[in-house]
């Protein structure tokens, strides 16, 4: 069910993501198989912003690599735009948790990579990259190297580098996880306004529930590993959402937060109990919220 207002009806069908009965096992160095995902069913409609929350190690990131075509499912099917994924999925961009910028390239060179890889002539690619840097507010920083930028600026570069290919799917793996709270809020606002212009389908992995609700059309809660979909919540907050910082004081936001947290809490507690000796649930709750 789609519960959003003001949707562009002419969304490209290639943005549809469909996971059916997906299981992913890894071979651990010791030889024993480790099941990261079990029987995951998930559909993301074209132009939909889907956030995935769940405890650490529940296979959230694995889901993204399967959609991107960087890895294969052990069982089940992963389809994008109606086609089963084979090889790297075209029209996809990925934003990683850690910086994936090339430290030896300038900011401009990093952003221009996507078009250059696709055979766009160098001059056109650089012009395009300049436009995108202006759009993320980094005009004047073209010739810097990534290590000369702040964490927030590097994320903007990564965002420009991801969007320049005009993807129909944007996969984001805790992209703002390492940022401080204020920068994170600003980046979230910018992400929403950029997303609104081209409306790619988004899978946004995070363990910050507030971030998930503030950004997404629907929030998927995953169980502690092996990960599977526990529940899906539609976020019926109207768009445009405005400032991510302020939306979280609204009454509906609080209700949704409460409702989803009820579902998420058990998983977080279970995951926490596995990784540590006798744990107090209070500490768990606080640890995840902060």
């Amino acid at each position, binding site marked *: 069910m789609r519960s959003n207002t003001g949707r562009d009806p002419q969304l490209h069908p290639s943005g549809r993501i469909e996971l059916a009965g997906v299981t992913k096992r890894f071979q651990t160095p010791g030889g024993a198989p480790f099941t990261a995902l079990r029987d995951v069913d998930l559909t993301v409609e074209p132009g939909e912003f889907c956030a995935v929350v769940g405890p650490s190690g529940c296979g959230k990131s694995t889901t993204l690599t399967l959609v991107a075509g960087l890895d294969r499912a052990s069982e089940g099917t992963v389809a994008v735009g109606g086609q089963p994924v084979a090889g790297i*999925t075209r029209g996809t961009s990925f934003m990683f948790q850690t910086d994936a910028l090339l430290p030896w390239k300038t900011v401009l060179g990093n952003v221009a990579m996507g078009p250059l890889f696709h055979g766009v002539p160098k001059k056109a690619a650089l012009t395009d990259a300049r436009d995108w840097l202006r759009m993320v507010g980094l005009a004047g920083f073209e010739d810097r190297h990534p290590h000369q930028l702040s964490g927030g600026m590097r994320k903007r570069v990564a965002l420009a580098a991801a969007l320049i290919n005009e993807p129909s799917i944007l996969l984001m793996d805790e992209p703002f996880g390492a940022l401080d709270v204020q920068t994170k809020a600003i980046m979230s606002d910018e992400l929403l306004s950029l997303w609104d212009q081209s409306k790619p389908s988004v899978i946004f992995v995070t363990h910050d529930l507030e971030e998930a609700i503030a950004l997404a059309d629907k929030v998927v809660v995953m169980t502690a590993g092996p990960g599977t979909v526990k529940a899906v919540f539609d976020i019926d907050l109207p768009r445009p959402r405005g400032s991510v910082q302020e939306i979280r004081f609204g009454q509906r936001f609080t209700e949704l937060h409460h409702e989803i947290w009820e579902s998420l809490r058990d998983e977080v507690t279970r995951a926490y109990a596995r990784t540590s000796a006798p744990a107090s649930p209070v500490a768990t709750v606080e640890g995840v919220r902060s």
Partner: protein
Amino acid sequence: MTRRKLAILVTQVFVLILVFGGWQLFTSLKIVDPFFFGQPSGIVRTAWQWVQHGTNQGSIWLQIYTTMEEAVFGFLIGVAAGIVVGVLLGQFRFLSEVLSPYIKAVNALPRIVLGALFVIVLGLGISSKIVLAAFLVFFVVFFNAYQGVREVDGNLVNNARVLGASRMQVIRNVVLPSAMTWIIASLHVAFGFAVIGAVVGEVLGAQHGLGVLITDSQNNFNTDGIFAGMIIIGLIALIAEWLISLLERRLLAWRPQMSSEASAV
């Protein structure tokens, strides 16, 4: 120049004077026999004589040029081959697993001995020395290139692949620049090996070169000549080291700060 740098420079000059002054003093006083251990003044005299009147093998510049030519060509060939093979084996796991025992075996051999073989096969000209130098350089660069390729951040590769890069584009844009830090670090050592290869090749049999000069001095019981040849080789290596540092600074300009201070020691 800061006080500290000045103090280091003054002390360095002092150490130089102490070593050569002491050497000169002890040999002059016959506490140490200059026949066996040479003498700084004799070394300078020998070198000056080479410059003014040439050596038994002809002009000193011809000897230096020959050795340099062998070392530089050997270095370039060895570096190119080392990078290509290192990247290939780093990229194709199957290939590296197949070849790994052979590479280890060849690496364990005392490769310098192969120089004798090369002199027989390729003759007394420069080609046998170039091949020996290239062979020594290859292994140093290869191991570093291979390691560098294996250490490439998987995230960077995945990101480039998702952005649409082909295998070649990934190698050119991600793998090679990333491995470059490792490769360049190996070049400092590699040029030393190139010079060793050239000089040892000449000692094993040649008509020209600093190695020939040294064997000739040896045959004439001219210790000063051996030392003079050694010092000329050392100076060449220092200049090459400086050139490689320049290259390093240029190729790795993107890095936050240089770590070449460590390698300069």
